[in-house]
């Protein structure tokens, strides 16, 4: 007896002293955890009919056959992996990340007036888990972008900036036109002027072509054996082209965050707005309305499967499954289309089906 007590105490002490390992749930623990089992069910359903069937069976343990266990466990391993990735990334989303992201983003800045950054961070962490298990490709895109932003914050791009600064200083490159623009007190005008200047200056290929062409001219002979252009002239041209490139390079390290953002967008071309514009058009031209939702349900009620149901409990289950199917459909469509507005549309359509009252 005393020995048993001693052993138990020794085990407890050893467990308390051991470094804390990340706790990852076994399948039975996942199923016992309300939040996690819900997410696991969503992951299974996002797979399509096979996953849907497994998820349904998990709700009725008596239907689970020995062969299903292996399938469920394989999926559970994947589920745990994705949850871990979401957790790892979520842990890096802190107050500073939110404040940083809100810079130059009117929507997030506005939310920060009514919500604490910690609150937003908490919401985003939860969303990440859901996205990680339902839309792997979207999650991977977010993770990749987050790593880039994190790397920037940690100074990973500093070396490149230093290299640029050195080249500008070695070549005495002039960024005065950009500095002049910076003196303009009006932010919108400043960005607009800046964009114009960048458009005129950015285009390294043009500078290279023009520069090399002046070399070619300086080396080429005309039909009388005379040089077509003077070497001095070509050298001056080359300096001008180097200055042109250098002005853009110099500006990329000289300017403040606000103009630097505009600079980067202008220099590289802003791809996201175009995609956003496209997904906005798609959403606004073919939106799900409460009326359309009711029409879709009326059609479903006309189906043979629904008509064959004999009691309201079965009809209610049919309606619940139909609504779930609509919600997954909206998510799937958003994943396929991509773009900001497709995600917004999916969120709203899901809410619409969840809120709308449908008659049995």
């Amino acid at each position, binding site marked *: 007896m005393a020995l048993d007590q001693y052993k138990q105490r020794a085990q407890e002490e050893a467990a308390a002293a051991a470094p804390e390992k990340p706790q990852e749930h076994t399948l039975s623990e996942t199923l016992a955890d309300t939040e996690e089992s819900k997410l696991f069910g969503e992951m299974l359903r996002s797979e399509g009919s096979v996953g849907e069937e497994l998820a349904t069976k998990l709700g009725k343990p008596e239907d689970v056959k020995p062969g299903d266990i292996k399938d469920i466990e394989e999926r559970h391993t994947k589920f745990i992996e994705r949850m871990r990735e979401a957790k790892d990334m979520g842990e890096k989303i802190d107050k500073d990340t939110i404040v940083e*992201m809100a810079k130059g*983003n*009117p*929507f*997030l800045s*506005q*939310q920060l007036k009514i919500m604490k950054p910690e609150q937003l961070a908490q*919401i985003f962490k*939860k*969303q990440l888990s859901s996205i990680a298990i339902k839309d792997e490709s979207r999650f991977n895109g*977010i993770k*990749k*972008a*987050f790593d*880039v*932003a994190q*790397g920037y914050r940690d100074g990973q*791009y500093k070396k490149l900036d230093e*290299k*640029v600064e050195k*080249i500008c200083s070695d*070549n005495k490159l002039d960024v005065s036109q950009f500095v002049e623009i910076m003196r303009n007190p009006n932010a919108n005008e400043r960005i607009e002027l800046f964009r114009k200047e960048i458009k005129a200056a950015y285009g390294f*290929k043009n500078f*290279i072509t023009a520069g090399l062409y002046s*070399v070619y001219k300086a*080396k080429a*002979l005309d039909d009388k*054996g*005379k040089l077509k252009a003077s*070497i001095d002239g070509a*050298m001056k041209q*080359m*300096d001008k082209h*180097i200055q042109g*490139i*250098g002005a*853009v*390079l110099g500006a*990329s390290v000289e300017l403040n965050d606000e103009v*630097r953002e505009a*600079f*980067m967008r202008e*220099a*590289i071309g802003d*791809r*996201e707005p175009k995609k956003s514009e496209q997904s906005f*058009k798609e*959403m*606004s031209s073919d*939106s799900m*309305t*409460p009326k359309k939702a009711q029409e879709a349900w009326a059609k479903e009620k006309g189906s043979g499967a629904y008509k064959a149901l004999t009691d309201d409990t079965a009809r209610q289950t049919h309606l619940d499954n139909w609504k779930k199917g609509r919600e997954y459909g909206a998510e799937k469509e958003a994943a396929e289309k991509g773009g*900001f507005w497709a*995600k917004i549309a999916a969120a*709203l359509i*899901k*809410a*619409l089906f*969840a*809120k709308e009252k449908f008659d049995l």
Partner: protein
Amino acid sequence: MEDNFNKLYEEFLRIAESGDEDAAKKFLADHVNEFPEKTRDEILFAFFEEALLKKADAITGRATMQQQGMDAIALLQKAKKDLENDARIDELQSSLGGGETAV
């Protein structure tokens, strides 16, 4: 709050159908907290994701641009140096009494 959903949703669709993307975004920004919590969180995250993707795009784009710019300068400087050498050779040949040379 949630009973308000249909009203909010229809108002949002009306703005979206007008084709004004900025106004649609502003509507969401002004009313996001009136949506059911789950929807609110998804909308907030979509905005966060958009900001994050833009930022990462700008960071990598800027780095690429800087690298391209430095490569371009290096290329032109090399061409300039070659030209300077050619000019020196040409000058030397002229001073040695050689004929005009296309370098």
